[in-house]
Every structure is written in C-alpha cells, then in structure tokens.
C-alpha cells in the first residue's frame, strides 16, 4: 500500500487547533466568574482534540504537554477538583504555551523548550504525578506456547454489536493451524430460531508458535460478549517472553514525521469555507450555465421577434454574474470574531496590571471581513484597545471622584454600514486631554500658539508621528509606535479612522474599512486620453475652478481655496508624465481627495462615471509604479490604472516639505 503522507493534514490540524485554543481561552475567561459544567466540557474537548491530533500527526512533545493539561481538566470535569483563579491562570498559561508550540511547529523548530517543560511538570505536579517515575513503563511478560485450546461461546447478543464470530475464527486461522468444532447444544428448534442471535459455540485448537497476547488480541473487542477460556494445549511447550519488545516497535512511528513537520511549515495559508457558501456557488454556476445555453440558441437562430427574450436573458446573465461575484467574494470573508477573541484575555491582563476595572463589551463579532483585511486590522485594534485602557479609562478612585461607576466600559463594535465595515472602539473614560495635546503640539512645533483649533483639529494632532502625551510612558503604550502607525495601517487597507471625544465622558475611535480589497468603487477619470480610476472612498468633492481661484506659489506649486483652507493642486498628467491633457484649469475638473491624513486636488480632463473595479496587481504583473496602486480592466477590454491617493499625497507633502 502506498503510504499516506500525514503532512497534508498538518495545516488543517493547525487551523482547527488555533480555533480550539481561542475557544479554550474564551471559556477559561468566562470560568473566571464561576464554574459552569458545559464550559469545562468544552475546554476539555478542545484539549483532548489537540492531544489526539498532535499524537496522530507526529508532534509527540505537544501530545505529552496536552496530556498533562487534559488530566487536570479531567479532574475539573469530574468535580474531583474545584475551579479557582489559580487553576484558570495555569490553564491560560498552558494555552499560551501551546500557541508557542504551534508557532514552532509551523516553522519546523523543536516544539518543547525549557518553559514548556517547566509548565508540563507544574501541571503534572498539580494532578499528583511525578513525570520521571511515570516515564518508565511497567514491564509485563507474556506466555508463548506451541498450541492453545480455546473455548469460545459467544453470547446471544454478539451479532447485534457488529462482531461476527466467523471473522474471529478467520483471524485465528491466520495465526496458526486451526481446528474448530462447533457446539450445537444451545441451538433452538427452527421455530424458535432468531437469525439475529448467536446460538453456536466453538472448541478450538490452535497449533503453532503463538503468544497468548496474540490469541487474546483476536478477542479483544468481544471479551464481555462471550465466555472465553484460553489454555495451553496439553503437552505444548510454554515459555515467557518480555513484552518490552512489542512496545519498542511502536516507537519509531512517533519519531519519523519530523521531516513532514518542516514540509507543512511551507504550506500555504488556507481559508475554511462553510459548505453552504460552496453550495450556493455551485448553484449559481448551474444557473449561469442554463442562462448561457439559453443565450446560445440565438447564435443559430436570431429573430427580431425574440428580442425581448434576448434582453431578459442578458438581464438574467447580469444578475447571475453580480451574485456570483458577491458569492466568490464571500469565500474570503471571515467573521471578525477571530480578531475580537484575543481581547477578553488582553483586557483582563492589562486591567489587572494597571489596577483598573474594565468591562469589555464585544458587539457584532459575526460581521464578516475580507481575510486580508482581517489579518491586518488586528495590530491597529490592539493598539487602540491598549490606549483606551492605559490612557482613556481611569482608576476606580478617579472614576469615583468624577461621579462614575468604579468599572469602566470598553466597547468594540463591528457592523456593516453603507457597503463598508465599521469598527468602533469606545470607552467611557476621561476623553482626550485637550490641554495636554495642545501643549505637546506646541512643544513639538506642530502648531503655533496663535492657532485656533477646532476639537477635530486637536484630535487630528494625535495622529502626528511620534506624538504621545502620556506623562510616564508605561510598557503598555507609548513605546514610540504611535497613532500615526495605526492610521497608516488603516489607510493602507483603504480605510479611514476618526475620533470623537468628550472630556470626562470618553472617546470613540471609528475605523471604516472596505468590504474587500479585491474590488473597489471608483470614479473613472480621463487624463490625456487615458483612463484612471480614483477610489471613491478617498474622494471628498469634485469642483470646477475658475482661473482666479488658483494661486501659483514660489517653486511652481499651485494652490486653490477649498472650504476654510488652501489645498495644493496635483496635475495628474504631470505626476504620471503623460502629455496631451488639458492645461487650462477652467477646462478640466479638480477631484479633492484625502489620503494619509492630507488633502490634495487632483486635476483631470474629465470624469466618465462611477464604476466597480476589480483590482489587479501591477506589481505582480509588471512592477511597482509610484502613485499607482493597481490596474483594472474596463468594459471595452482596455486597461485603466488605479490612482494611489495615499501614495500621491505622501509624495506631495514630501515635495512641499523639501
């Protein structure tokens, strides 16, 4: 038989184990409040699955570790041990330790290290086991003989349990030379015979050099379903053999798959897709095929009288294509719960460390996001949650002094809004400290003392690089990775971030993200006879300027008045070095866009209209081009480039700073 490579199941095992560990952690945190049997069962089950998988797929260190955690959980499950904060704490550390082991497994490193071994011994000690003693297997011995006399009388019910006596006889016959004699004394008359019951018995003689264990092995499943005696045949030679040899033969199997682990490390990342999503795709493709074959009839036989049918068919085709597109996008969509799940633990640890009382509310955990967005939104959210606990929420004493409850509330909410995903992080803490922010900004020279700042403008200051108002930088936040990085991460995902804050009442950070990175809504613009797509999310307004609204500044830059300030004009034909476009400002249009926190007016010849664009990577197909984030194919088959608004505004501000 060709051997099945177990490595192909490693990724599935890792994925499901990560989910299992997340579930364990969530349940452990919920246990903190008090013991619920179902929670303990769930935690046990997750540990048990990881142990089974680890042993099966060749990770013996992980299996050994999980075995100890499982023993402890088993005692909790049976009620032999009461749940307390100490146990929850040890188990949470075990979850972390397993996460570390999985990370090492995925990169092909040895799984156990000093800390995992220490924790394994700690767990073992808790369940009253010393590992060194348990390691030595008890030596048993076995009899071997040159012949066995076996009396085998199945109980009536044996057949119902799926065991066939004939199968057992056949297995015995494979061990040696078998003679069987049926015992028919229990066989009822034909009228009373129930074919689903077993009425026969056998006297068997097995000759050959066979161990007792081998004979017993044949009957291992039916020991309680038959009367069985196994005796050495009179006159047969009997001798003892140690069993250790049998155990040794199973050992290499566990050690072998090391190379396989490394193979798995290179495996691609995967997405688990719900069956119903796949079913709906298959359905849609089926519909598409039907519509296509219906339209196909027009190839042979086109008649103006059937024009209406053709129009209906085309409408149907458009509908199916759209639904199919949505469904395919849906495959990459995963619930944000996988990101939210890490916060209960983090909030618990942080609030304990800082002596604050925090209640965490998670809302909309089932909101689905594109997998890529999901992977990249974790870090910004962690940063915002840290900030909220560290800077936003107050200590119980200060809250009491401000007339609030001791426990602060931190709320994470995800929802769909107007074709985007909105994630809000809100707290009922002190709110942004306007004086401290303004003072810091003055000190850093970001603003002048004469500037009059709106609340919005003050809030915007915290997104400046290296900005931190924390008087004492703790090891939690204020480590130089500031809000500017948070904003850059969000903008890189095609999103935006806003702050609302009220002194003494708290702050709300609102992150708006696109549903997917694969498709964008864009405005098609013409520049010098070429099509460009400007992402709709970045557009603030489109204006037509008159000559007198334009100011030319030293160095050749152009500015125009927009709302209550001046914005630079960026002529796309100059930026992209493609001549032939309109020069006179009155003949074209200015699209005001915002990217990476700054605004700029893009000058284009004309606007064609709004459309959805499937983003194709320029980097993968050609090379990276400054100011362009990708390309798309238009309805007529021609290629349009997608403008990288954030990149262009960064270029602009660098140029202005220089």
């Amino acid at each position, binding site marked *: 038989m060709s051997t099945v490579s177990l490595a192909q199941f490693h990724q599935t095992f890792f994925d499901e184990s990560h989910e299992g560990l997340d579930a364990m952690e969530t349940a452990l945190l919920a246990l903190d409040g008090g013991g619920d049997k179902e929670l303990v069962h769930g935690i046990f089950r997750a540990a048990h699955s990881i142990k*089974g998988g680890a042993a099966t797929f060749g990770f013996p260190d992980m299996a050994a570790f999980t075995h100890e955690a499982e023993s402890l959980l088993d005692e909790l499950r049976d009620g032999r041990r009461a749940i307390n904060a100490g146990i929850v704490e040890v188990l949470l550390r075990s979850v972390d330790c397993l996460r570390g082991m999985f990370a090492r497994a995925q990169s092909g490193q040895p799984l156990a290290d000093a800390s995992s071994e220490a924790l394994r011994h700690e767990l073992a000690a808790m369940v009253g086991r010393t590992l060194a003693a348990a390691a030595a297997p008890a030596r048993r011995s076995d009899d071997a003989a040159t012949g066995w006399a076996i009396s085998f009388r199945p109980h009536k019910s044996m057949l119902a349990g*799926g065991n066939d006596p004939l199968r057992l006889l056949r297995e015995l016959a494979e061990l040696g030379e078998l003679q069987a004699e049926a015992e028919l004394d229990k066989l009822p008359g034909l009228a009373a015979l129930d074919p689903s019951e077993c009425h026969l018995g056998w006297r068997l003689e097995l000759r050959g050099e066979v161990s007792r264990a081998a004979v017993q092995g044949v009957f291992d499943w039916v020991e309680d379903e038959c009367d069985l005696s196994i005796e050495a045949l009179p006159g047969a030679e009997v001798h003892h053999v140690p069993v250790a040899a049998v155990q040794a033969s199973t050992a290499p199997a566990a050690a072998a798959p090391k190379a396989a682990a490394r193979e798995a490390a290179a495996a691609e990342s995967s997405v688990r897709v719900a069956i119903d999503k796949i079913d709906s795709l298959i359905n849609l493709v089926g519909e598409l095929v039907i519509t296509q074959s219906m339209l196909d009839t027009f190839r042979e036989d086109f008649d103006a009288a059937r024009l209406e049918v053709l129009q209906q068919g085309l409408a149907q085709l458009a509908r199916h294509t759209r639904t199919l597109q949505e469904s395919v996008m849906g495959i990459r969509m995963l619930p944000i719960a996988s990101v939210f799940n890490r916060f209960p633990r983090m909030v618990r640890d942080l609030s304990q460390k800082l002596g604050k009382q925090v209640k965490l509310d998670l809302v909309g955990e089932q909101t689905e996001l594109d997998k890529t967005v999901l992977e990249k939104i974790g870090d910004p959210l962690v940063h915002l949650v840290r900030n909220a606990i560290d800077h936003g929420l107050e200590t119980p004493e200060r809250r009491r002094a401000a007339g609030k409850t001791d426990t602060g509330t931190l709320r994470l909410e995800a929802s769909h809004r107007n074709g985007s995903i909105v994630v809000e992080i809100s707290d009922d803490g002190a709110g942004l400290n306007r004086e401290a922010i303004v003072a810091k900004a003055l000190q850093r020279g970001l603003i002048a003392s004469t500037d009059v700042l709106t609340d919005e403008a003050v809030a915007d200051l915290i997104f400046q690089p290296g900005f931190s108002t924390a008087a004492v930088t703790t090891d939690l936040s204020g480590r130089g990775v500031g809000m500017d990085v948070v904003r850059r991460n969000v903008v890189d995902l095609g999103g935006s971030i806003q702050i609302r804050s009220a002194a003494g009442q708290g702050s709300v950070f609102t992150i708006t993200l696109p549903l997917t990175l694969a498709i964008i809504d864009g405005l098609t613009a013409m520049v010098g006879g070429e099509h460009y797509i400007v992402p709709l999310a970045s557009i603030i307004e489109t204006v037509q300027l008159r000559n007198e609204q334009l100011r030319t500044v030293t160095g050749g830059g152009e500015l125009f008045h927009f709302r209550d300030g001046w914005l630079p004009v960026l002529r796309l034909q100059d930026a992209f070095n493609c001549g032939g476009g309109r020069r006179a400002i009155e003949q074209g249009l200015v699209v005001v866009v915002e990217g990476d926190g700054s605004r700029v007016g893009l000058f284009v010849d004309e606007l064609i209209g709004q459309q959805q664009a499937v983003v194709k990577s320029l980097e993968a197909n050609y090379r990276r081009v400054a100011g362009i984030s990708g390309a798309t194919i238009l309805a007529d088959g021609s290629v349009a480039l997608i403008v990288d608004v954030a990149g262009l505004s960064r270029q602009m501000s660098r140029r202005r700073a220089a």
Partner: protein
Amino acid sequence: MAKILAVDDSASMRGMVAFTLRGAGHDVSEAENGQLAVDAAKGARFDLVLADVNMPVMDGISMVKELRALPEYKGVPILMLTTESHTDKKMEGKAAGATGWLVKPFDPEQLLATVKRVLG
C-alpha cells in the same frame, strides 16, 4: 468497496480517516458530530461507522446508542476512535453497542488493517 461513515469533530482527524479509506477504494461520508452522523445514517445504509468519542452536540457513546436503536443498524460494525488513557470509555462504548475500537494515535496502515479486520 464499502460505504463508510467517518465521524469526528476534528477536521484533520476526519480528513485523515476519510482520505486513507478513499485511497483504499471505499466510499466515505463524513459527519462532524454524533447528531449529524445519526441523520446521515438514516438517509443511507453504511457498512461501517467510525466515530470519535468526545464530540460536541452528541458524543460518540450516545451516537452508538441511537444507531443501535435503528433496526437497519443492528449488526452493522461501529468502531470507536478512542485514546488509550480512557479504558473506561472503551467499555462504555461497548456497553452502548459499539463493535470495537481503534486506539489513537493510529496511522493510516493501522486504520486500514482494522477496517479490513471488520469488513473481512
């Protein structure tokens, strides 16, 4: 070729079992827990059921009891996939009507040998 139902809440375990048995030419269906297995078993006649013990919704032991209560599953082999640390579970499974067990961890060869043993 036999019609076999593989029941395990762990996708990797189930995948390994199903892949191995399909490779040996069997027709394998999969179920994530005992309840789904019972539902599947009612709709199709399986020659063999392989089931994990610890599962959410309905565990393997309850699943065996439910299956044995169906007239068409009297005498059909049902094997429990169990861990050696739970000898009591083997007996509990037997008492519920399981045919036998396969001790985890097992490799594809051991699985095929056991399946061959039951199906002949």
